[in-house]
């Protein structure tokens, strides 16, 4: 059932067994996975079925960054039913096994469980995202020691936009979806360990509450942190913030385009070209996971943009032609506590503090990129596959992949949520989405975040039926 929150009488109170806040990739996944369970569910979504500029402006906030634009908070996410899947590219990958373990390149990046724990849920994530596996190719590079990313492109454009794709299914389901209703505050019990209700406001001016036995924040990595940071009468540090980590370690995948000369050995007409390095090599070099996407090479023959280097590369590949192309490095963010979401002094239309984002590219990250490019040069050169470049002046692009602001850890001293995505110190408050990723690897996050949300749905279904969170 889909309703308009603007029609809910002012001062009303709604009640449910489960309250999901946010109807993007994570929120819709929860609704789909639990709609047939024996529980009442309310999903509160700030936006409508179409993009509304006034709702979207609610996402604006100050950005302090050397790479991200001032408009990043407003343009890198969507406040609309279906969330940011209304914009996303639909490409995604499985997080590689080694990312879950302890790595010298990403200290403290280990997950509370291994890759096997998430594996069983990817099949459901594929179904939800209409994804089909692409067989990895670019064979000579794989033979040279690079590792293919397990990659899943989206289906049709309509399949990718989850709000549209599942609108009718959810309309017929017993889940109660309220559009145009923004959650602005969490109300806690006197002990401060349980959420009793959330306050909902609409731009039309009405406000009401939603009480529930269990709450899940699924509002994206920036808003999840913002809602948890909002002070409550018993807690002004933020919920689950014993570690001081709440809002910190914000990550996005940076992309760096650079040139590549490929010898004809490298060509094969394969569609898929997303690779990374063997984990042992990454560990040896102590670098975070850096992916390599080869863009379709231009037919540049020896006149490729490598100038004289192209000639030498051509010379060194006897019997083969060399041509120029582009390679994109997909860079896993390092955990950097200064890259963070804060509450700004600027109020939004509901009088609540807007998000403020701080994000800088550290010299450590640049050093990781240089090491990875050297590694690629080493592998490609050793195997006669080509030559790569790395410009001194790194011009980054970014993926709009918001991550790690409410990191998962068994210990409340290291993370914001536990291994089941429950906020530390809270009995009935959970977080869904890539904000819980302790580290992310180099790949687009939505596929694993949906798999992780399916896992959370199973945990909630069992817990709510056993009244475990009461």
């Amino acid at each position, binding site marked *: 059932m889909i309703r308009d929150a603007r029609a809910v009488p002012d001062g009303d109170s709604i009640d449910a067994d489960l309250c999901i806040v946010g109807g993007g990739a994570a929120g819709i996944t929860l609704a789909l996975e639990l709609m047939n369970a024996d529980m009442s569910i309310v999903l509160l979504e700030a936006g409508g079925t179409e993009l509304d500029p006034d709702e979207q402006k609610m996402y604006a906030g100050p950005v302090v960054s050397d790479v991200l634009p001032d408009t990043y908070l407003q343009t890198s996410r969507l406040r609309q039913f279906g969330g940011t899947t209304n914009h996303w590219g639909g490409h995604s990958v499985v997080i590689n096994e080694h990312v879950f373990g302890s790595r010298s390149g990403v200290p403290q990046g280990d997950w509370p469980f291994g890759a096997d724990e998430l594996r069983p849920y990817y099949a459901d994530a594929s179904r939800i995202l209409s994804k089909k596996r692409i067989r990895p190719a670019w064979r000579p590079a794989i033979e040279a020691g690079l590792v293919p990313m397990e990659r899943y492109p989206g289906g049709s454009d309509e399949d990718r936009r989850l709000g549209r794709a599942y609108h009718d299914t959810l309309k017929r389901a017993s889940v109660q979806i309220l559009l145009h209703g923004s959650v602005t505050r969490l109300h806690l019990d006197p002990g401060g360990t349980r959420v009793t209700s959330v306050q909902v406001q609409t731009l039309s001016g009405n406000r009401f509450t939603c009480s529930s036995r269990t709450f899940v924040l699924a509002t994206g990595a920036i808003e999840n942190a913002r809602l948890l940071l909002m002070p409550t009468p018993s807690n002004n540090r933020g919920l689950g913030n014993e570690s001081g980590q709440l809002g910190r370690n914000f990550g996005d995948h940076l992309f760096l385009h650079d040139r590549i000369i490929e010898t004809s050995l490298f060509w094969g007409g394969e569609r898929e070209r997303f690779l990374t390095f063997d984990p042992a090599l990454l560990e040896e070099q102590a670098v975070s996971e850096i992916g390599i996407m080869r863009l379709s090479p231009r037919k540049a023959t020896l006149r490729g943009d490598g100038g004289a280097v192209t000639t030498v590369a051509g010379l*060194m590949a006897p019997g083969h032609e060399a041509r120029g192309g582009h390679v994109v490095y997909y860079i896993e963010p390092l955990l950097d506590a200064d890259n963070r979401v804060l509450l700004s002094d600027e109020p939004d239309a509901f009088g609540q503090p807007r998000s403020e984002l701080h994000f800088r590219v550290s010299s450590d990250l640049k050093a990781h990129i240089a090491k990875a490019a050297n590694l690629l040069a080493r592998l490609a050169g050793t195997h006669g596959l080509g030559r790569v470049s790395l410009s001194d002046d790194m011009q980054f692009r970014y993926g709009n992949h918001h991550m790690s602001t409410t990191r998962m850890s068994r210990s409340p001293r290291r993370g914001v949520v536990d291994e089941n995505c429950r906020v530390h110190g809270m009995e009935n408050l959970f977080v869904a989405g890539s904000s819980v990723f302790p580290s992310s690897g180099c790949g687009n996050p939505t596929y694993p975040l949906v798999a992780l949300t399916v896992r959370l749905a199973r945990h909630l279904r069992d817990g709510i039926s056993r009244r475990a969170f009461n």
Partner: protein
Amino acid sequence: MATTGGGLLYLLGYSRMREDAWTRSPLPFARFEHEWRRMFSDLDDPAVLDLAAKALEEKREDWQDLPSLLPDLSDRSFKEGIERASARSREDYAAGRIVSVDNWLISRSEAELLAMLRTPG
């Protein structure tokens, strides 16, 4: 034979002149010859040297046409010379002897070859 020498000259000339500047202002022949000899000595292969010396002699007249001459990479001597240089370069790559030249991450021996090609004659 002529094709081999022409091919080397083509590559050498391309390295020096870059892209379309090549056709507009070819290098003076004497300078070209000088660099060509140095390149051959770098390849360190008397057979290739010999072949190329003859090819150069033949091409003295019509070397202006060089851009149209493509290397015949199937020629055995040429190939062997290049393969030796290539093997040396691969060893460098495998050992991580990589340097940055114009933002390209290339092996030390390739960088030396490039430097040689770029030294004014």
